[in-house]
């Protein structure tokens, strides 16, 4: 019998149900909301018998197995206990909230949040996979944020919710880190593996870190000192939320986690010190502070903190019996605290106030509620015949038997008694101040009993307190045993749940606590006066202040980085790249040659000197833009010569052709841009930029040198071996482009085409001022198209086209190919534009360059697709040799067709850019604006 996943799944669906009940009568809304969780509870109970027999039910579904993430549920006694608490108390809260919320409030939204939270909690306690557990853990933080801030019109609700989210969310991140470390240590995210490999974890070097991270997660969630401050501020939530979150669920998630990992992490000294003392501090701080809270819910909040401390303290003692006592107190605390919160909610609801200085003598007005609340409060105080007494006795007994602190072991029971004393005092205050002690003062409403069914959940819980207190062994020992077995993952020690253990130390401690508590409460005025001397501290303000400082710090940093200046961004980017590229070089100790250097010859040296000079000229005269452009073009020419020198004729040709096109483009652009750059960089900036660029250049040179002097392992041998036999060409570079890596080239020309079209669109809608003179005020030469140039260029065109056709056709076997031929053709046509003007060209050759790009891409694509007809993959090439009379033997290759596509696209893109930019200087401009 499995199908565990239905339990959380039903509540997940249930979280959406209330959204559809908006506008329906409130009781119907509550009933519909309660339906699916109730079914969940039934399912859970169906599984209960197996669990009581000691079975651990586990169910798995694969999700992302590669990172160890699967959906896996686990139900053992420990999980069963928590699931029962979550579902049972959750259902009572649904009933209670129906009466608590006012008619105008959005009940559907409230219930949706509540059930979502319920799902998250169920997910935590039922998870077998750690990552999944963490996911639900975060979900509780988020859904509790929504619940706490339900009254979002109140500033304190928003602030309280944000604080809770920040603190528990931060803990959640620590928890995730802890889980990842655990998985790294034992190699699995399965809880079963974690529990089975406890020794592996404890012996590993990561143990301390894992423990700290997981405790951080648990302590933030369970509001342990010093993270306890968020809990009182979460009281801004509607009371049903407080009753649910702070009795049975949210804060118990941390406790659950401690218990869940108890077998894996406990039993060490570190665990004892960290957990016990955190618990003890929390117990004392909570109990002491609770006494001074005038707000009813504030008192309960601090009391919750104190009781959580007590449970944590018990878990820290490294004793199995103490763990059993902790579980028992979890049950007891859930029952009496939930009922107390609900009673406080009733009082708030019916009187309009929660201030104990106003609320007095309510016994007369609401005796029924009062008696319920008094019983619950007495249970909290640990008075006999109530469940709080029994777990408190167990707690005392455990503190007495431990001797972990050697000769100082007595301090723990003494401090525990002190904590219990204050617990008695604040419980008495709750009872006496609210229900007796004179008459109500200035209450907004006249108090009266609440609706019948609003009290029902409180009655059920208080009845439980009584039953558990009088006949604990009879009611709860089965559940307690199975839960303890689940927690300890082993044999459960003998424990005795009975009211009377004879006259012993724990009983004496209880008597001391009760009488001292009564004494303190009787003399409370003095204590109040003493406490009043301290300056009031508001954790909310402190928290907000720290948060604000953090935000300010971030803003300052943000303002530094995010200045809105591109110049600044590029500087930051460059500096980062210097660091990223430079750091690995530090560990590269050896840049000296591991391969023989080629000798330097005079020709190359001359080229290098010229290149250096040209670069320096470009930089030094960069403010005279024309000179800079000339400098850059000289650099480009020498680079193309360098390619030729180092046996790369294809590159040399390409570079040369591109150089021509680039220079024409930049000159055209310069026509519209200022001819000079103003001097505006302050000297400091010039020096800084020089430094950065010199470092950058130095790094680059180092990397290049290191790269070139190391033995070369290239993958090119394959291309060299197969160029002729597989690709049918001897020009390996061209064969790579159109055949081996044809798909890359195909993408490449597509990008080229897109860039051309993008530029065309930019040019179309450009409105530029056209200067009628040069920068010195001289008018342009009226002879726009010199006859000489015009004549020569026209004669040159067929020649140039012939050359480009030749370059194109021979490309597969000799330097050349579609790219270079395309550029040569483009240059030839641009020359016509320059020499004869746009109008001339338009009359004679109205080429549509967009169509040219399109057809080029189409040809290339179709060539690629063509291979599908022959059942081959995209762009498979074919070639064969033919022999014709006169022509002789020649080769035909499908790659040639592909190269034609490249050729056309290159011409189209280049001319689309240049011709259209050129048109801007002519009367054609007006027509372009019309076309737009």
């Amino acid at each position, binding site marked *: 019998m499995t199908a565990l996943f239905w339990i959380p799944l039903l509540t997940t669906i249930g979280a959406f149900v209330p959204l559809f009940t908006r506008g329906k009568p409130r009781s119907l809304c509550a009933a519909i909301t309660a339906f699916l969780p109730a079914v969940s509870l039934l399912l859970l109970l169906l599984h209960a018998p197996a669990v009581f027999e000691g079975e651990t039910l586990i169910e798995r579904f694969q999700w992302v197995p590669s990172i160890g993430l699967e959906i896996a549920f686990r139900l053992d006694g420990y999980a069963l206990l928590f699931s029962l608490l979550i579902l049972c108390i959750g259902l009572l809260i649904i009933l209670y909230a129906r009466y608590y919320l006012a008619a105008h409030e959005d009940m559907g939204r409230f219930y949706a949040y509540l059930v979502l939270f319920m799902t998250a909690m169920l997910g935590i306690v039922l998870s077998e996979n750690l990552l999944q557990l963490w996911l639900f853990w975060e979900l509780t933080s988020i859904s509790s944020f929504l619940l706490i801030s339900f009254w979002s019109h109140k500033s304190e609700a928003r602030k309280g919710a944000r604080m809770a989210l920040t603190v528990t969310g931060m803990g959640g991140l620590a928890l995730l880190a802890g889980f990842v470390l655990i998985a790294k240590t034992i190699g699995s995210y399965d809880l079963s593996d974690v529990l089975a490999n406890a020794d592996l974890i404890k012996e590993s070097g990561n143990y301390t870190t894992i423990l700290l991270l997981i405790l951080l997660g648990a302590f933030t969630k369970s509001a342990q000192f010093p993270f306890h401050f968020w809990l009182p501020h979460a009281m801004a939530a509607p009371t049903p939320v407080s009753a649910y979150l702070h009795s049975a669920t949210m804060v118990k998630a941390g406790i659950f986690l401690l218990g869940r990992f108890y077998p894996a992490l406990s039993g060490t000294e570190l665990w004892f010190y960290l957990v016990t003392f955190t618990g003890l501090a929390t117990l004392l701080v909570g109990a002491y502070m609770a006494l001074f809270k005038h707000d009813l819910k504030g008192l309960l909040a601090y009391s919750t903190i104190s009781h959580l401390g007590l449970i944590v303290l018990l878990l820290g003692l490294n004793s199995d019996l103490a763990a059993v006592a902790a579980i028992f107190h979890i049950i007891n605390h859930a029952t009496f605290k939930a009922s107390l919160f609900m009673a406080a909610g009733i009082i708030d609801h019916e009187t309009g106030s929660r201030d104990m200085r106003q609320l007095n003598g309510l016994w007369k007005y609401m005796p029924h509620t009062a008696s319920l609340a008094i019983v619950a409060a007495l249970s909290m105080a640990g008075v006999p015949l109530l469940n709080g007494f029994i777990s408190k006795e167990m707690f005392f007994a455990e503190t007495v038997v431990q001797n972990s602190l050697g000769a100082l072991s007595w301090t723990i029971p003494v401090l525990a008694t002190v904590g219990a004393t204050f617990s008695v005092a604040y419980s008495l205050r709750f009872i006496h101040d609210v229900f007796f002690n004179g008459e109500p003062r200035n209450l907004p409403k006249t108090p009266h009993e609440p609706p019948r069914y609003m009290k029902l959940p409180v009655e059920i819980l208080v009845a439980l307190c009584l039953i558990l207190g009088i006949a604990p062994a009879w009611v709860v020992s089965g559940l307690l045993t199975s839960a303890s077995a689940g927690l300890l993952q082993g044999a459960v020690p003998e424990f005795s749940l009975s009211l009377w253990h004879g006259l012993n130390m724990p009983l004496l401690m209880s008597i001391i606590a009760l009488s001292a508590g009564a004494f303190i409460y009787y003399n409370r005025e003095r204590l109040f006066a003493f406490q009043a001397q301290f300056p009031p501290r508001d954790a909310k303000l402190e928290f907000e202040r720290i948060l604000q400082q953090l935000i300010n710090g971030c803003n300052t940093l943000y303002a530094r980085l995010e200045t809105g200046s591109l110049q600044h961004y590029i500087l930051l980017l460059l500096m980062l790249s210097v660091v990223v590229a430079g750091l690995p070089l530090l560990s590269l100790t050896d840049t000296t040659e591991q391969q023989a250097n080629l000798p330097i010859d005079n020709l190359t040296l001359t080229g290098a000197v010229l290149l250096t000079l040209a670069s320096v000229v470009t930089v030094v005269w960069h403010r005279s833009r024309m000179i800079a452009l000339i400098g850059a073009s000289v*650099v480009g020419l020498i680079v193309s010569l360098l390619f030729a020198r180092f046996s*790369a004729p294809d590159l040399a040709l390409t570079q040369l052709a591109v150089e021509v096109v680039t220079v024409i483009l*930049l000159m055209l*652009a310069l026509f519209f841009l200022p001819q000079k750059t103003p001097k505006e960089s302050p000297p400091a900036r010039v020096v800084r930029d020089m430094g950065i660029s010199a470092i950058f250049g130095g790094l680059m040179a180092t990397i290049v040198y290191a790269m070139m002097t190391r033995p070369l392992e290239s993958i090119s041998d394959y291309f060299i071996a197969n160029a002729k036999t597989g690709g049918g060409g*001897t020009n390996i570079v061209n064969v790579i482009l159109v055949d081996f890596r044809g798909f890359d080239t195909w993408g*490449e020309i597509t990008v080229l085409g897109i860039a051309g079209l993008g530029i065309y669109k930019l040019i179309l809608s450009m409105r530029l001022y056209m200067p009628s003179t040069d920068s010195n005020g001289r008018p342009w030469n009226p002879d726009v198209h010199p006859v000489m140039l015009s004549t020569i260029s026209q004669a040159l065109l067929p020649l140039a086209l012939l050359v480009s056709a030749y370059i194109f056709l021979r490309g597969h076997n000799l330097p050349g190919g579609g790219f270079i031929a395309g550029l040569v053709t483009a240059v030839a046509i641009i020359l016509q534009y320059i020499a004869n003007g746009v109008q001339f060209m338009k009359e004679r050759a109205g080429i549509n360059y967009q169509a040219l790009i399109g057809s080029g891409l189409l040809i290339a694509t179709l060539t690629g697709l063509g291979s599908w007809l022959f059942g081959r993959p995209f762009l498979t090439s074919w070639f064969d040799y033919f022999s014709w009379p006169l022509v002789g033997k020649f080769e035909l290759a499908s790659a040639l067709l592909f190269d034609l596509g490249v050729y056309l696209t290159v011409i189209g893109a280049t001319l689309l850019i240049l011709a259209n930019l050129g048109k801007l200087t002519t009367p054609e401009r007006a027509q372009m604006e019309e076309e737009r």
Partner: protein
Amino acid sequence: MEMLVAFIIGVLTTCGVFLVLRGRTFPVVVGLTLLGYAVNLFIFASGGLVLDGAAVLKQGLEIPDPLPQALVLTAIVIGFAMIAFAVILAMRARADLGNDHVDGQLPEPPKNPRRTVVGKL
């Protein structure tokens, strides 16, 4: 020779980066061109330097690594498209914004531009 090529690439990078850091668009474009040369040479150099090698498959001559050459060939063409795009964008920016500063506005006299985003609750 390797040292010389490394030096050339270093010089080109230095000059390119310096110009890229300028405030006006045209020097930045020229700087990008220089950087483009440097990067192309860099990729080319990764295949090692071969003097008087075979331009095409031929017996008896050392064949230079063709793969970086193929990469650089397309890089040169794409580089042109990029420079063209950058310069047209620069022109367009000048047309639309009225100045040719890379930030789209002329630099003001230095003052601390402090933006505050106050967390609102």
